[in-house]
């Protein structure tokens, strides 16, 4: 892939700067490629979760606040797959068909959990509100309620303290593939970034080439006209939620492989970040979600490298504010309807 790529300063470890105030340039430079690759990996997960926000927002102009919990449930889907298969807590990793089968089941269950949760959310929490023509803020509060209820249900009825790590028994995703500067790029980095790109391309194809996708774009642009033209709007909305859920499920699967851990509150902060990423790129815009996610991951890690981890989120949010000052609708503007992703 990038094997031939030699960064310009390779092998030249930065000389320690005279330690000045709060900025640590030495560390920034020494960890540049490491932070870049890990930032992109996390950014890829942000991007996939951001899609859940962006799709729903594009079609409904609604912040689906509970998307973070949809994702969190997906991580438990992967976990459930390992329980079902009875993956032992010790022993050699699987190989061949067994490995593919396990991964497939993990992915399928993650997607089922997330997609199912997203669909249920639409049916139970949002559709009744639409029937009543409720104001948008009511949707938001319902979403917040759903988010609290789901996270706390998982926490209170089981997994508050539990963090399971049996994923490593499936596949050694920590194998070093190649080096960029000093940093060992591992299977998991390639998996996450590659996986996110594949899912995103799939989504772009779906939205642009299929009938349902066209329906989504039509509803996003003008729901009333779409209905007059024979689009089943409720159906399209349900599909939108489902697709957002599937993306969150994919993100959950990749998260499971990447971090090999999950918890009832794994979703909240990631959700906030993913939403930030969606807004950064231009909410409602698929390309925007991708670029916003990757960019946010990079900014966070570079910022943490330069200023220290305690300023990571401050930097991320400050960049968001600055970007919105210059481009009030994010880097790529809004509308799903006109997106060319």
């Amino acid at each position: 892939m990038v094997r031939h790529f030699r960064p310009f300063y390779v092998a030249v470890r930065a000389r320690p700067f005279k330690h000045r105030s709060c900025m640590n340039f030495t560390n920034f430079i020494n960890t540049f490629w490491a932070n870049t690759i890990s930032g992109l990996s996390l950014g890829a997960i942000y991007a996939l979760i951001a899609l859940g926000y962006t799709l729903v927002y594009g079609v409904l102009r609604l912040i689906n606040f509970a998307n973070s919990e949809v994702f969190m449930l997906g991580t438990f889907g992967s976990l459930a797959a390992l329980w079902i298969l009875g993956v032992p807590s010790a022993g050699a990793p699987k190989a061949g068909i067994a490995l593919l089968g396990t991964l497939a089941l993990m992915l399928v269950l993650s997607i089922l959990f997330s997609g199912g949760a997203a669909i249920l959310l639409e049916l139970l929490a949002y559709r009744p509100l639409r029937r009543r023509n409720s104001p948008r803020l009511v949707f938001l509060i319902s979403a917040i309620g759903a988010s609290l209820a789901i996270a706390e249900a998982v926490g209170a009825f089981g997994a508050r303290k539990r963090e399971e790590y049996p994923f490593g028994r499936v596949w050694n995703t920590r194998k070093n593939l190649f080096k960029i500067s000093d940093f060992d790029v591992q299977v998991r980095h390639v998996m996450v970034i590659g996986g996110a790109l594949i899912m995103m391309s799939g989504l772009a194809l779906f939205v642009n080439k299929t009938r349902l996708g066209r329906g989504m774009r039509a509803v996003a642009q003008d729901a009333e006209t779409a209905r007059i033209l024979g689009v089943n709007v409720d159906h399209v909305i349900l599909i939108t939620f489902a697709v957002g859920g599937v993306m969150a499920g994919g993100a959950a699967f990749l998260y499971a492989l990447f971090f090999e851990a999950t918890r009832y509150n794994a979703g909240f902060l990631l959700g906030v970040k993913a939403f930030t990423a969606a807004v950064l790129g231009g909410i409602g815009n698929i390309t925007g979600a991708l670029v916003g996610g990757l960019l946010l991951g990079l900014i966070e890690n570079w910022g943490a490298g330069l200023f220290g981890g305690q300023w990571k989120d401050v930097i991320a949010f400050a960049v968001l504010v600055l970007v919105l000052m210059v481009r009030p609708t994010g880097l790529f503007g809004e509308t799903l309807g006109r997106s060319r992703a």
Partner: protein
Amino acid sequence: MNATPSGDTTPKTVNKITELLGATRRRKGLGIGEKWNALPKQARICIALVAVALLYLLPWINPPIIRTEDTDFASLLAGTVVPYVLVALGLNVVVGMAGLLDLGYVGFFAVGAYSVGVLTSKHASLPWFLAMFIAIAISMVFGAILGAPTLRLRGDYLAIVTLGFGEIIRLSAQNFGWLGASEGISSIKRPPSIGPLKFTVLENKGYWVFGLSLILLTVFLISLLETSRVGRAWTAIREDEDAAELMGVPTFKFKLWAFAIGAAVGGLAGAFYAGKLNTIYPRDFEVQKSILFLAAVVLGGLGNRWGAILGGFLVAYLPERFRFVSDKRYFFFGLVLMIMMIFRPQGLLPRRLGRGRAKGIDIRKHRAGEDEDDLGVVRSSGRG
């Protein structure tokens, strides 16, 4: 509530019944308000006075069923309920009256609390009341500083930017040693005793009386604002910002005012909180609090100050009242929020409709089925 979409397949009879039910419910709902208005003025004043007196005496009456069995009622009222109610009142100005979605309101709460902490304990030893006023002023300035660059953003962008600012404020408090960093600020001063009102370590009732007075004063000041030119401008902005702008309302200026006034009330709440608990930590001001605050305002009834008070009270009170479900408290709270939004989206005490001013934007419009959006999704025309 009863606006069944035209394309619905429900049989006509059922349709009619729901309509009738809806109608009675609506009539009943308005009935209370009508009855209240029909009462002679003296009667209304008397009832209001008795109600206020009862509220003041709440910790002394310590009413069974209402009181919290598992935690100290007076302490809860003074230390948790008062700050939440004040916060809900302030947030209601921003979200309910001016229609600006703020997800980082806890930031102003933090600014108020930290101002008092810094001024009475960490770096100075000012008298408490002076510190309180300075805290309000600082919060107001913060509101204006954060509002100025962001208020030009549209609704949902504003939401995430405010959320970001709330986090930036919390993280700054956590990272700057000058603000106490992770250890927070302790030994914050208490308000000095005013005659029989004592604010000692173990005395909660004094705080309640003081806090309730602050709440009533805030309500009074806000209602003055609401009926003034400012209030009318806010209504105009909320209903349709573009139209308001066209009609010559300087929307930006009034939005900034809403933000600053909301921030000031948030700062007051924070100052009170710091004066009551005497110890503050950065983690008291996490994003989740902002979300709870917003839930409080909507739960109570967006745009209605009495609703905001009720919402703030419930959000502070319910989890402590139902301590016995311990770990599952917030699970049930989440469910209640969802169910409420389905069956009573306008909140427990909806904004009063039709009295020449502030018409309930969406609720009323959609009840009457005026805004025929096939999706049923409100594309808030007033940007946020």
